[in-house]
């Protein structure tokens, strides 16, 4: 497990964001320590984009506190220089070339590393002299990530960057990201639907559902804290009293529980099993995944 003494790069307390009638984010309290690669997971409309935009300073919170890299996100060159944000739409100037974008970055940033972008694009075979609008989605995403990294940010915020990419482009993108992380000094928050992709690169998890934070912590710790219990159909009041029940599936013969442990499970009638990231996430989202047959009725807890 990583040292828990790493300073927090992101810290929010009771953060909320309302748009006219819609609450996009409610009472969000999270912390991400330096060097983590955090997976921001949640169904559509859970508030992932809103959270990332508030962290980047592109949107202002309606309530609560947010501290990023030791200060409030703000329109200030010194702060912006340390943040890299890549929006879901991958906004680039369609009629400009990659080389133009490198030039733009060089003019708008101090400490700009244009060489790294050229090297990266050449190794991927992406032309530097063609209008960005003519590149494929994967190539544009690679270019955008390379440009974001060329700022040499300390915090990288990526909003579903691989959602529109084919599996090969996705793998290349994540390899590119992993390489940047391996260089050190970089903290990443990466939102996505694709759990399998995130599992490979992430060591921290923020789970959002219905505008609220359901889980936030190092994945290893979270997995160790949770357990799946499989046993006969019986009264589980005792277990629910000792531990926090996340999700339960009860059939005529069998009970399957996902719990957050507060110590060892005493009931010998239940077999315990370790929980995987996907089970954990889906359990919190209200659907128990895994080997349970699909015809079983799931009785989810109200989140």
């Amino acid at each position, binding site marked *: 497990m990583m040292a828990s003494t790493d300073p927090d790069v992101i810290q929010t307390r009771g953060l909320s964001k309302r748009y006219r009638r819609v609450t996009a984010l409610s009472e969000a309290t999270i912390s991400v320590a330096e060097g983590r690669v955090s997976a921001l997971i949640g169904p559509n409309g859970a508030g992932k984009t809103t959270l990332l935009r508030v962290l980047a300073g592109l*949107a202002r919170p309606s309530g609560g506190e947010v501290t990023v890299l030791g200060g409030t996100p703000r*329109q200030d060159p010194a702060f*912006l220089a340390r943040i890299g944000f890549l*929006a879901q739409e991958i906004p680039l*100037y*369609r009629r400009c070339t990659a080389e133009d974008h490198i030039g733009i970055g060089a003019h*708008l940033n101090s400490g700009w590393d244009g060489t790294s972008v050229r090297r990266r694009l050449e190794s991927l075979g992406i032309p530097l002299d063609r209008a960005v609008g003519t590149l494929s989605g994967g190539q544009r995403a690679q270019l955008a990530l390379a440009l974001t990294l060329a*700022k040499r940010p300390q915090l990288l915020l990526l909003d579903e960057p691989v959602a529109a990419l084919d599996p090969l482009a996705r793998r290349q993108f994540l390899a590119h990201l992993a390489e940047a992380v391996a260089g050190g000094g970089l903290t990443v928050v990466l939102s996505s639907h694709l759990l399998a992709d995130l599992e490979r690169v992430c060591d921290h998890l923020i789970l959002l559902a219905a505008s609220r934070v359901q889980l936030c912590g190092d994945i290893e710790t979270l997995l160790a804290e949770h357990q799946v219990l499989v046993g006969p159909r019986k009264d589980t009041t005792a277990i629910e009293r000792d531990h926090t029940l996340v999700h339960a599936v009860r059939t005529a013969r069998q009970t399957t529980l996902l719990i957050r442990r507060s110590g060892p499970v005493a009931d010998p009638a239940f077999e315990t099993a370790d929980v995987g990231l996907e089970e954990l996430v889906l359990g919190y989202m209200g659907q128990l995944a895994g080997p349970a047959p699909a015809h079983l009725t799931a009785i989810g807890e109200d989140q």
Partner: protein
Amino acid sequence: MTWLVWRQHRNQAYVAAAALAAFAVLLLVTGRQMASQYRSALSSCAVSHTCGNLANTLSLGTPVLSLLVTLTVVVPCLLGVFWGGPLVARELETGTSQFAWMQSITRSRWLTVKAGWALLAAAAWGGAVSALVTWWSSPVNALNHQNFQPSQFDIQGIVPAGYAVFAVALGIAAGTLLRRTLPALAITIVVFTFLRLVIGQDVRQHYMTALTRTYKFLHHPVLPTGSYWRVSAGLVGPGGQIPGGQSHVAGLTLSMNGLPVSVSSLPSACRVLAFQGPVKFFACLTAHGYHGLFLTYQPASRYWAFQGIETGIFVLLAAALIAVTAIVITRRDA
């Protein structure tokens, strides 16, 4: 940031420069011809002592050319539509503003540089077109003394530069508030045209208190000299001034001693005498309590003061719009 602005908009700049150059060549060539035509007409009329009547006998330029020059009145609006409207709106639409705003640069600086260059370019292009038109029109102005009239006032001197700056600022503000290019263009055209009409027709004449001259019937009126602007003219009736012609009354107007009078405002008893010679007609008017004719005008000497005031108004409006834009850009969520 200037580098980015130039990279994004250099093609627009090239097109606009080419259009301006073509217009300049056309006006320089025809303007020289017109100037020499006017000079030779002046020297020949001096010989025959007919220069007092020159305005009625000489016509300068061609109708097509005059129409083209008159059409430069739309140049500021075009600049507002092509340069102002898309400047911010296009970036918000395509999301490229987010790319720019996540570089190490504040949004206020981003806007300042972008809008600054756009407004400067608007002033330069609006001013250049106007300078060409003003130079081209100088023989016509000397001949016809029409340059204080709205149709000429609006395309000469420094006001076109002020209009252009305002139109571009309006486009920028509309694009920022609406976040979409096409509606911003529509709003720019509508608001710009509306404001120009209101200021031109109802506000401009009050920049300074207009002067009034009154004339007795059957005396030849001594009109003001030079390029004065006739704000209003007509009869002085029993109840006061009755403006005629001059944009106030559509329909029939009857020119008396060079001043317009609307027939419909005359007492019906006199109306039938209108075309039966002046003596009977004016006797009838006098009998009905009419005192004479009046002319309300802005003297030619105020031309540049009016140009300055109008330019100032539009530049101030532009500044207010840019201030609103800056507040919205920096405060609103991206």
